[in-house]
C-alpha cells in the first residue's frame, strides 16, 4: 500500500518538476525563472525524501537537507543579483 502511494507521489512530484522547467523555459521575466528554479529545489527535496522512504534509508534525508541549504543560498544569490546586480558588496 505504502509502496504504491510513494510511487504515485514520486511520479507526481517529478511531473511537477517538469512543469517547473516549463515555467523556467518560457519565463517571461527573470523573477519568474528564479522562482521556477527555487521551486525545483523544493520539489527535489520532496523527491529525495520520498525516495529515502521508498528505499528505507535515512541517508537521503541528509542529501535533502543539503539541497535545502544549497537551494536557499542559490536563490538568495540570484535574488540579490536581481536586486543589486552585484551580489557581494
Amino acid at each position, binding site marked *: 500500500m505504502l509502496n504504491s502511494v510513494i*510511487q504515485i507521489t*514520486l*511520479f507526481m512530484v*517529478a*511531473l511537477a*518538476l*517538469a512543469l517547473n*522547467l516549463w515555467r*523556467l*523555459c518560457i*519565463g517571461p*521575466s*527573470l523573477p519568474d*525563472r*528564479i522562482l*521556477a*528554479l527555487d521551486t*525545483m*529545489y523544493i520539489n*527535489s527535496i520532496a*523527491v*529525495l525524501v520520498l*525516495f529515502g522512504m521508498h528505499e528505507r534509508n535515512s*541517508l*537521503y534525508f*541528509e*542529501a535533502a*537537507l*543539503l*539541497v535545502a*541549504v*544549497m537551494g*536557499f*543560498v*542559490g536563490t*538568495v*544569490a*540570484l535574488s*540579490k*543579483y*536581481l*536586486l*543589486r*546586480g*552585484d*551580489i*557581494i*558588496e
Partner: protein
Amino acid sequence: MMLLAIILLPMIGAAVPFMTERMGRTLCAYSAAIGPLIALGLLVSSAPTIFGGEVLYSQTSWLPSLGLNLNLRLDGLSLMFGFLIVGIGLLVILYARYYLAQRDSLAKLYALLQLFMMAMLGIVMSDNLMLLIVFWEITSLVSFLLIGYWSNQSDARKGARMALAVTGAGGLCLIAGALLIERIVGSFELGAIFAAGDEIRAHSSYPVILILVLLGAFTKSAQFPFQFWLPHAMSAPTPVSAYLHSATMVKAGVFLLARMYPALAGTEWWFYLVTFTGMATMLFGAYNALFKHDLKGLLAYSTISHLGLITMLFGFGTQLAVVAGIFHIINHATFKASLFMAAGIIDHETGTRDMRKINGMWKYMPHTALLAMVAALAMAGVPLLNGFLSKEMFFSEALHLESMGMFSWIFPLLATLAGVFSVAYSVRFIHDVFFNGEPIDLPKFPPHEPPRYMIVPVEVLVGLCLLVGIVPNLTVAPFLEAASLAVLGEQMPEYHIAIWHGVNLPLIMSMVAMAGGLIMYSQRTGLFAFYERKFRHDEKIVFESRVQFSVRVAQRFTDFIQNNSLQRYMALLIATAVAAIGYALWTMPQLLGPVAISDIEPVSLLGAVILIIGAFGTVLLHHNRLAALLLLSVVGLIVSLIFVRYSAPDLALTQLSVEVVTIVLLMLALYFMPQLTPNESGNKRVARDILLAGAAGIGMGLITLAILTQPFSSISDYYLANSVSGGGGANVVNVILVDFRGFDTLGEITVLAIAAVGIYAMLNGLHLPLPQADGEGRRWDKEPHPPILAVMARILLPLALMVSMFIFLRGHNAPGGGFIAGLVTSVALILQYVASGTAWMQQRLRWRYRRVAVSGVLIATLTGIGSWVFGYPFLTSTFSHIHWPVVGDFELASAMAFDIGVYITVVGATMLILAHLGKLAQSSHSPRPATSKPYSSPELTKGED
C-alpha cells in the same frame, strides 16, 4: 673515497672564492687554488699505483633504483687526463688573476672554472656510462656560462648559445647511444661494457649506437661539420679559452673516443666514420686557421685541426695510432694552452687581437715573444719540441695504413698537406705578431711585458713542451704507457719514443711540411685575397637565422593551436576525444554485451526528460546568459538526483555544493559582462559545433552503454574489500581520496590552491566598468543589504557550520569528508558576504584566505611527511579506535589530519576566489587612478577566426 674526494674538492672549492672575494683579488686566487691543489696532491699520490698497472675503484651508492651509482675508476687514461685538467686548471687560475679587469668578478669565474673542473674530472673518472653522461651535460652547461661570462656582450651570448645548442644536441645523441648499449649489455658499468665489446660490435644496432656515440664525441670535440661553434666560443675570456678550448672541454670528445675504444672500435664502420671525419676536420681547420686575422680565431681553427688529427689517429684503429693519439692529446694541451695564454697577454697589453695591427711585438715584450714562439714551433712540429714527436708518429702511422688498398697513399699525402698548413699558420703567428715591422694604431701603446706572475703559467707550459720534446722517456713515457694500457688492454704494442729515428719517410714528410709551410706563408698576400673573395661567411649569422627560423615555425604552430579562442581549444579537444571514441567503437565487435538493461521506470524517465530539456534549453538560450545559467542549474540539480538514485551519495553531495558555488561564481562574473551574448558565429561554425557536440555526446553515450553491458571486474572490488581493513573507514570514496590515492588528492589540492592564488593575482588592482541596470532595464535597488535576508543568513550560519562539521567528522565512514565539508562551510560564509557585505565580514573575519589555502596544503603535506618519522613511505596512514566516555567508541585515523588539510584548502581557495571577485565591484566603485585606461577585454568577446 679518495677518488670521490678528487671530484668533490673542486666542487666544494667553487664556493670558496665567493667568501674570499672581499679580501682582495690575490687572496681570492689563492683560496680558489686550494681545492684543486689538494686534488692534484691526491692524483700525484696515486700515480705510482696506476703506473704499476693497477686500476683504482670507488663505489658509492647514489640512485641504486635507477642503476646509477657514483662508481669511479682511476686508470691510466683517467690519470693522464686528471693531470691535464687539474694542472692546467691551476695555471689558468693563476693566469686569470691578472687577466681579468678590476670590474669583472673573479669569484664568478673561479667558481665556474672549478665547477667545470669537477665535471671534467667526473667525465674522465666515471666508471658508469650514465654517470659519465651526467658530468658530460654539466660541462655543456658550465661551458655555456663560461663562454657567456661577459653576458652584456651580444657576441658572448650568441657564442654561448651556439656552443650549448651544438654540444647539448650531441649530449642527447650520446644518451640515446648509451641507452642502446645498456639494452645490449644490461648495464651501464664500463667494465661490463668493455667485456661485451664483441657482442656490441656484432649486434644489428651497432651502426646506430656508433653513430649516436660519435655524434656526442664529434660535437664536443668540434669535428666537421660541427666545428663552427668553437671559433665563436672565442668570445669567452682568454683563460676560459685556454682551459676549455685547448685542454679540457674539447678533449672530452676525444676522451670519449678513447674510453669507448675497447667497446666500439675495430670495425669498418668505426674506421671510415672516425678517420674521414677526423681527416676532414684536420684539413678544414688547418686551411681556415691560416686566414684568420684574429689571434684567437687562428688558435681556434688550429685547435679544430689538431682535434681532427687526434680523431683520425683513433680512427686508424692500429695500436700505435692510439698511442700516438693519446700522446698528441697531451702535447696539444700543453702548447695550445700556453699559446692561448700568450694571445691573452698580447690582447691584454695591446687592446686588440687583430694580427694586421699587432706587429713587431718582439721589441716590446721579448720574454712573452720567446715563450710564444717556442710554443708556436711546437704547434708546427719542429724537432726538439713535443709537437714534433707525436706528429712523427702520426706521419708514420699514416704511411703504414693499408686499409684502403691502393688508395692508401691518400693518407700520407693529406697528412703532409695538413702539416704544410699547420707550419704556415704557426709561422704566421710568429712572424705577424712579433716581427713584420711596427704595430699599427694599437688601442694601448706602447705595449710592455705583463705582470710577472701572469707569465709564469706560460713558462711552466712551454717548459713542459721543451722537456717532453727533449727527454720524452724521462717525462711523459709513464703517463703514455698507463693511458695506452687503459685503452688497449692486453694488446699493448712495442713502441719507442725517440727524437732521432734516422732519415726515414716520416722525417722527410716533416721536412716537406716545413718547407711547404714557409713557402705558403711567403705567398700569403695572394692567398688572403683569394680567401676573402671565396670563402667568407659567418657561421654565426647562418646559425642565428636557423634558430630564428625554428622559433618562427614553433610560433606559427603555437599560434595555430593557441589563438586565444576558447572555442578553438574546445573544438580541438572534443575532436580528439571524438576520434578516440570513434576508433574504440569502430574496433568493437558488437555494441551491447550480455548484461541486461534494467527496466525504465516513469520517474527516472521524467528525470531524463528534464535533464535533456535543461541541456538543450541551455544551448538554445545561451544568448541570454542568466537564463542559460538557470537552466544549467537545473541540469546540475538533476544530475545530483541521478547520483542519489544510483547510490553515489558522495558524488551527489559534492555536485550539489559545487553547483551553488558555481552559480555564485558565474553571477559575480556576469555582473561585469553584457547580459546578452552577441551572435557572432556564422552558420558554418554553428554547423561544425553541432556536428562535433552531437558526435561527442552520442559517442560517449554509446561507449558508456557498451561498457556497462559488458561483464567486467573493476578495481572497485579491491577498494571495497580493503577499505575498512586497510584504511579504517567504511566510506570507500573518502578512504580512496585520503588514503589509497592520498598522493593524487595532495596534488589536486595543491593545484586548487595555486589556481586560487593565480586568480587572486589576476584580479588584484583590476578596475571594471559597472553596469547601471539589469538586462531587462530595471534600475538597481537602493538597499544593498535587506535586513530580513541579513538576519536569516546569520541564523543559518551556525546551522550550516554544524552540518559541515557533521559531514566532515563522519566522512570516513559515511558520505561526506573534507571536500564536501569545505564547500558547505564556504557556501555558509558566502551567504554572509551576500547578505551583509564585505565590510561587515572583514570586521568579523580577519583571515587572509591566501594563507588559509596555503596552510591547508601545508597541513596535508606535513601529515604525509609525518609517516616518514615512523619509517613508513610518504602518506602512509594509520588508524586506531579509542574509547571516549559518553561518546563511545571513536575512531581516530591519521587520514583525518590529511582531510583537515583538504578541508582548509577548499575553504581557503573558494573564499579567496569568491571574496575577491566580490571585492572587484568595490574597487571599481572607488574613484580610479587618472592614469589607468578603461578596461576592455578583446579576448572575452572576440570570436574565433
